[in-house]
């Protein structure tokens, strides 16, 4: 089976849906679709950002994960307090590999876990006093922390603690920004609302801090990198390209970012946004309030990088535009060599993706540069506008799945038989045991960076070593092998 037709894919979806009871079938049918490039709007074929069905296995996270884990967590010189019981913070600690420079525990706090460790008495009598005490304690132990964000876990909202009042009072007392974030896990259907809440908290408590303060010397080439979380060093690999073009990167949001950078972002000329899903809200706000234009870019794979660099340069004068061409030309030999090396080994391989809110469409270009084809893609927590953008990137009659359940994903893989799956840690071992090569695409399977030209080299190497790993030929026990299969292995 090489490529499936529209009808075949539709039949596959129907077949998989058969296992569900009537009501669940009706609901899930809206989340599975066959891609049709002629559609302008995704809502005609797929429904997204809806509550997951109880009883099915979803891999979504919660609003706390979206706020603490994604948006706020990587800001390195602030302390992010997981306010509530100990588990939420501890089990998500340092899992996203947001790299940063600094001395952890002295002036940076990225991989540490701060929690108020709620006990029964805090739930019964309220935790506001504890929070106030904790803020004092943190300030005493870590005086170089530039600020504190209070990331609420579920119980805070349930018992109705007034974290805003405590934060305001303590913020005045310590003369540091203390940001209460109402990102209780039960809010919304996925981590996506957590991103929105976190963006709103930044808008209300951080963005305006330096309004009217003109002491920061600006240049006409100031940009901010928004929505790059520096996973495995991604933001660094992106940043050097922008700097080589002659732009000045004032702020990184939020991988390896600082509070001061965020406060200075309203002074830039252009916001470059990589993860649209998690940070479009703040970009829209800055466009409205400060008149800063924003654009989406994509630094996965040489084709998309060149496209994005030219698009970025178009916002500036001719020197920058000439520099963009120089940067593309400078790296050409490098990436051509990578394509020449890996493309013959990867040509024609078929990939299925299921990641968060950006990569299911952003990495398609990088796979295509290596001669691979993405035959199925889906998001955990995308909204309709993400699918609008995806339809054009994906081939016709490929499979789209929104918030796919464990059962559906397994069945799709059994039928489509891709050569590689890119998804998260929860799917990794299931598919590896099924004998399908797998890359963990949330945090690059402990590798990275994948952004930029430097990242593309690592990306190509990783895909090659996963797909062409000799272990996939040893999936069957030797005593179960038929003579026929044996000769095949020997020949290979």
């Amino acid at each position, binding site marked *: 089976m090489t490529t499936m037709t529209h009808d075949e894919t539709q039949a596959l979806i129907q077949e998989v849906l058969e296992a569900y009871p009537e009501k669940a079938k009706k609901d899930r049918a809206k989340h599975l679709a066959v891609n049709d490039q002629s559609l302008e709007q995704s809502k005609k074929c797929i429904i997204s950002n809806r509550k997951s069905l109880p009883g099915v296995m979803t891999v979504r996270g919660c609003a706390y994960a979206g706020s603490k884990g994604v948006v706020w967590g990587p800001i390195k010189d602030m302390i992010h307090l997981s306010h509530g019981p100990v588990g939420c913070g501890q089990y998500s600690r340092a899992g996203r590999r947001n790299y940063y420079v600094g001395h952890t525990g002295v002036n940076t706090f990225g991989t540490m876990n701060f929690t108020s460790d709620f006990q029964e008495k805090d739930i019964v009598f309220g935790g506001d006093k504890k929070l106030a005490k904790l803020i004092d304690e943190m300030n005493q132990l870590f005086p170089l922390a530039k600020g504190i964000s209070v990331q609420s876990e579920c119980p805070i909202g349930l018992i109705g603690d007034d974290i805003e009042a405590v934060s305001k009072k303590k913020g005045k007392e310590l003369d540091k920004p203390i940001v209460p974030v109402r990102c209780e896990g039960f809010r919304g259907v996925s981590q996506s609302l957590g991103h929105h809440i976190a963006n709103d908290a930044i808008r209300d408590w951080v963005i305006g801090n330096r309004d009217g303060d003109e002491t920061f010397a600006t240049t006409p080439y100031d940009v901010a990198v928004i929505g790059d979380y520096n996973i495995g060093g991604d933001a660094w690999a992106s940043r050097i390209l922008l700097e080589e073009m002659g732009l000045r990167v004032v702020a990184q949001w939020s991988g390896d970012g600082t509070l001061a950078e965020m406060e200075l972002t309203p002074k830039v000329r252009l916001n470059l946004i990589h993860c649209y899903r998690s940070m479009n*809200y703040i970009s829209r706000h800055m466009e409205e309030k400060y008149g800063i234009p924003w654009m989406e870019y994509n630094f996965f794979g040489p084709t998309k990088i060149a496209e994005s660099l030219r698009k970025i340069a178009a916002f500036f004068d001719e020197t920058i535009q000439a520099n963009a061409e120089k940067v593309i030309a400078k790296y050409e030999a490098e990436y051509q060599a990578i394509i020449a090396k890996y493309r013959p080994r990867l040509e024609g391989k078929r990939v299925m993706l299921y990641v968060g809110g950006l990569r299911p469409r952003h990495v398609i270009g990088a796979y295509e540069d290596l001669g691979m084809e993405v035959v199925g893609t889906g998001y955990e927590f995308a909204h309709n506008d993400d699918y609008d953008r995806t339809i054009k990137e994906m081939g016709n009659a490929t499979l789209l799945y929104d918030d796919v359940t464990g059962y559906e994903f397994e069945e799709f893989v059994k039928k489509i038989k891709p050569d590689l799956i890119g998804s998260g840690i929860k799917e990794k071992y299931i598919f590896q045991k099924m004998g399908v090569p797998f890359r963990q695409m949330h945090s690059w399977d402990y590798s990275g960076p994948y952004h930029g030209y430097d990242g593309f080299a690592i990306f190509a190497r990783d895909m090659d070593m996963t797909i062409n790993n000799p272990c996939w030929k040893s999936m069957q026990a030797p005593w179960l092998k038929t003579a026929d299969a044996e000769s095949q292995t020997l020949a290979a």
Partner: protein
Amino acid sequence: MPNVMIRKNDAGDLLFYVAKKDMEETIATVEFDTADTWGGAVTLTDDSSWYIDPISPPPTFPTTLRFKRGNE
């Protein structure tokens, strides 16, 4: 009466964005779109209609405005 952010996209069309509803649509027609007033009945590409009292002078986009549903 939702708060709506109106902004221009790359093609120059006006986009109608309701953050709370996570809805972004292109504006198809505006009743008054002249040098000194903007507003009135607004229809979107998804055929929904909205209303705002005409504003003069016209606002500069992007901006957030309060719209009424067309049938209210």
